[in-house]
């Protein structure tokens, strides 16, 4: 659609182009984490270019890109994965491998309904696909469909390590009125599991830390977060969650120490800004300007994937409760995690409009929660 706007101004995005001073001036650093796998990626790419239409190579390459995309929290890699899968993307009945990867890519774009549709098709074809059950459980949880989410955790017991199932169930249980019980259950399950992958352990620790912080067991939360961080695995979700915890604990210096090298990632820059706000740092206006420009750049694409963070930015840093409330409400339509509920509540209070947060106060989850 063409929008005609008189004199649209996007000054922050249109800086003045320049000619660099000298030949050796570094203009851009490519994502470093891509380095070790660069070789493998290039080899796979070359093989695919030599054999276009070869599904197994394409699937392998797309998987690598999605893993990178998750680790770096970088949507470009998801785009590359989609590009690799292009020949199969629009065919009527793609193979189960393509369905799974497509669901992951759609999920990343917050196209949850399409992702769920693909996962349902895939699980119908292949009921033993653990990744599909897990992904489905995660999306259903985000959408606050806790009953369905729980049902999607159960097959994991037999398919994957029981720890995955326990983590999945505890995570949902903690949001449906059984936080303390879920916490103890998961802690036991983690203790009993000797052999498991790093990624699995990281996830369980993150879930434990988040439940602990929600039920006020801050020291334990801190321990679980610290343990998870010891793996030194790039996990943006974990960094965000721990930074939020530290901000709540009024420990802004630690947030800055942890994230100052990673501010290329927008959500982490937001946490740094909130930490600097707590410290009364002089640098804050500069960071606020940067964040404003980044949100504006995202909006130019016609996407609004990060309204939750934008609501938080608008409320805490721009101090515009009305606008923040609108963003938080829009965010709540598609995402219903605890942090989404919290920003909606905070914005509603700040805007003196408690009724706007009614759906948080009486969530559907309480009506259909599971007894026991």
């Amino acid at each position, binding site marked *: 659609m063409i929008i005609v706007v*008189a004199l649209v101004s996007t000054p922050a995005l249109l800086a003045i*182009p320049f000619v660099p001073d000298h030949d050796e001036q*570094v203009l851009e650093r490519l994502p470093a984490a891509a380095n070790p796998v660069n070789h493998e990626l290039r080899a796979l790419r070359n093989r695919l270019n030599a054999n276009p239409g070869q599904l197994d190579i394409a699937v392998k390459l797309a998987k690598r890109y999605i*893993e990178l995309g998750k680790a770096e929290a970088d*949507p470009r890699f998801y785009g590359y994965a989609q590009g690799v899968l292009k020949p199969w993307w629009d065919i009527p009945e793609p193979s189960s491998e393509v369905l799974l990867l497509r669901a992951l890519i759609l999920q990343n774009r917050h196209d949850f309904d399409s992702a769920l549709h693909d996962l349902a098709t895939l699980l119908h074809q292949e009921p033993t696909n653990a990744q599909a059950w897990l992904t489905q459980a995660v999306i259903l949880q985000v959408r606050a469909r806790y009953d369905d989410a729980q049902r999607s955790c159960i097959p994991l017991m037999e398919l994957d390590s029981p720890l995955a199932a326990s983590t999945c169930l505890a995570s949902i249980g903690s949001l449906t009125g059984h936080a303390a019980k879920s916490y103890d259950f998961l802690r036991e399950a983690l203790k009993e599991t000797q052999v498991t992958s790093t990624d699995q352990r990281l996830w369980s620790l993150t879930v434990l830390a988040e439940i602990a912080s929600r039920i006020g067991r801050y020291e334990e939360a801190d321990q679980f977060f610290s343990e998870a961080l010891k793996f030194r695995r790039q996990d943006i979700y974990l960094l965000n969650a721990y930074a939020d915890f530290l901000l709540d604990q009024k420990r802004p210096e630690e947030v800055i120490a942890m994230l100052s090298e990673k501010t290329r990632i927008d959500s982490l820059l937001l946490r740094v800004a909130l930490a600097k706000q707590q410290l009364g740092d002089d640098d804050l206006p500069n960071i606020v300007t940067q964040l404003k420009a980044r949100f504006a750049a995202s909006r130019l694409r016609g996407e609004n994937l990060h309204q939750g963070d934008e609501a938080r930015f608008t409320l805490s840093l721009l101090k515009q409760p009305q606008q923040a409330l609108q963003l938080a409400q829009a965010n709540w339509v598609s995402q219903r995690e605890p942090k989404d509920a919290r920003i909606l509540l905070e914005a509603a209070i700040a805007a003196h409009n408690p009724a706007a947060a009614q759906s948080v106060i009486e969530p559907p989850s309480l009506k259909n929660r599971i007894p026991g």
Partner: protein
Amino acid sequence: MLLRALLGFILYGCCLAVFAHKASDSYLTLMVSAGKVSGQWDIALRDLDFAISLDTNGDSAITWKELHNKHDAITSYAFTHLHISSGESPCQIKPTQYLVDNHTDGAYSVLLFDVACPRLSTEIGINYMLFFDLDPQHRGLLRVEYGGATHTAVLSPTQNNQKIVLAQVKSGTVFLQYLHEGIWHIWTGYDHILFLLSLLLPAVLYRQAARWKPAIRFRPVLIEVIKIVTAFTIAHSITLSLATLEVISLPSRWVESAIAASVILAALNNLYPLINRNLWLMAFGFGLIHGLGFANVLKDLGLPQNMLLLTLLAFNLGVELGQLAIVTGFLPFAFWLRKTQCYRKVVFTLGSVLIAMLAFIWLLERSLNLTLID
């Protein structure tokens, strides 16, 4: 076992998108001004590296040298993935400059370019295919700026063709734009100013017994000036209109040389007067040639076909306004100084000599296609 195979690729837990970077975008801006189209295209270095490998030495850092060495490759890659057309015929894209800019998500290569459309109509068509084969989530963020309005569109694999209709532009805006161009042209086109001055310099004098004498009263001077200016105006308006409407057409080298010659003759006529009465006839005759020169400028600016007469009128009025400003600046000054030696010796005589010399250089340059002075 399937389970084992899967374990290598389990994305645990909260694999939801966190607000990290935006996905890949390029920023394509087209500026349509006075019928001329130019553009700026900002493309992320990361994306270019992914498509055509900028990081030649593989150290994960892209330097200006590495980028600079790839400018040809970038140009050919980028412009085979972008097609601009107007009135159903394709336009030629000519890169003019390579710059760098920092956007919120990293450094971008900035390509500046001119767009030459054989027939610029009120519609510009854009066909955009950059990176869509490699990254279907890439978007081209298009801005078209025209006559004070901005059209924006997001170009995606499913919406990669855009037709931007320029007709919504207010005719008032176009009028002012061309009026401005007209004024600007007479002020920066020294040949026209000098021609006019050469004719006006003797207006405050009169010739008696082969000598120049200062005019006594202002009124006859004013009438003389009005006659000259009006004759020049009518003459160049005629040829400007005829040439713009493509009734007559002469090669611009010929026209430009003739304009230079007209300045020489006008200046020499002050030094060795052949015509000292009815200078307006000279203004009219040479005015016809100057009008052809104005027409070439107007053609270079480009003409919106739907507003041909409006732009012609606006440009012409602009030329007259610029000319009027010169005359009102010159006349009181000349009249005030007319009795002094300074006026007759320095302004009139030396001035005419200098004008003739300068115009002679122009004549050589234009007729022989040389560059003698900057």
